[in-house]
């Protein structure tokens, strides 16, 4: 699915809906990440309450500020209040001529 133009995305995830399919897309510098729209812990939409950032080791992480859950966007593993949380589903992303495409 075409998610939008590269410049539309930032570290604040944007929930993209096309028909009955949807995902969240965020960008850190030149890297774009796509993952499920709802937090795997309590199913809150990640657009209004999520943020992505690089941790001390330089790995891209997602924070859901609703309950403080954090997920590693490379491995998908996450924790909420220090306890293991269900992993986050991630989707392959391709950027073609500034257009972001996500394979759901």
């Amino acid at each position, binding site marked *: 699915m075409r998610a939008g133009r590269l410049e539309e995305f930032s570290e604040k995830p944007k*929930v993209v*809906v096309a*028909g*009955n399919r*949807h995902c969240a897309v965020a960008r850190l510098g030149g890297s774009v990440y796509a993952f499920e*729209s*709802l937090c795997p812990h309590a*199913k*809150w*939409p*990640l*657009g*209004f*309450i999520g943020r992505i950032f690089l941790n001390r080791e330089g790995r891209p992480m997602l924070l859901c*500020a*609703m309950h403080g859950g954090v997920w590693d966007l490379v491995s998908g593993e996450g924790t909420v209040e220090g306890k293991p949380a269900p992993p986050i589903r991630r989707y392959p992303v391709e950027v073609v001529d500034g257009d972001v495409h996500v394979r759901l």
Partner: protein
Amino acid sequence: MSIAKILREEFESKRYVFDELKRAASSLDFLAQFRDSYQFIDWFKATIDPILEINYKTGALWIRNATVKGIILWTRQGAWNEWAANSALAKLITEYRDYIDDEFLNVFAHQVSDEARHFYIRTKVLKMYGGSMEDFQPIKEWADLFEWPLRCATKRLEKPYFQAKFTGAFQTVELTATVQHKGIVDNAHLNPEIWKEPYRDATRMLVEFSREIEDDESFHWTIAERVWAKYATTPEMRAEILDCAVGALELSTIAKIKRIEAAESSR
């Protein structure tokens, strides 16, 4: 620019969400594409994300700029809302109990007890700020919002439609209220004005209460999720749910902005 004006402009820019939901509600072919009720619920929440963002800001931006006088006006409306919520819920579980499954009847009753506790605490906070409910008249949009659930749900006064439509209208508002209170909790510390004596304890109580209410509203939203999980299995039922949910989302967001507008008028 006033916070109400900023939020109103943002609301206008997100109107496309309501258009998309209305389009979905009118297309049984589209609504038939969901594998099951859970997929429908997830799609609904993903679609309304931009509206939840505005609702978060009705808490966040408002509290960052609030005055004590504004908090008093805002809390008066809030206390009335708790009373109005219970009036609608009390009617629901008495006059309309024959249209509600046994398993949901008790959960609605639990919500009644929560709303009563909220009313009790809100009036306490109001007194701590030096306010009262004397001569209070509700904002019209809030009165409309609390009339909407029964008005919409009674269009299909039969099982299982009634309870699914009611939760579409009522509990969807609870979802928006959860994020509004989250916005208050996350941002109240950024407004030094409201932490000055003699209001420090009142503000502390307002924030603690907002944190408490956040969990309660979240639980109230799950009543809709339970009902929808059970019954949103057909395109027809999904359309009926959306019919009530879209109106509630629109009304509740407008009402929250109006409440801020009224509070700001006290400056």
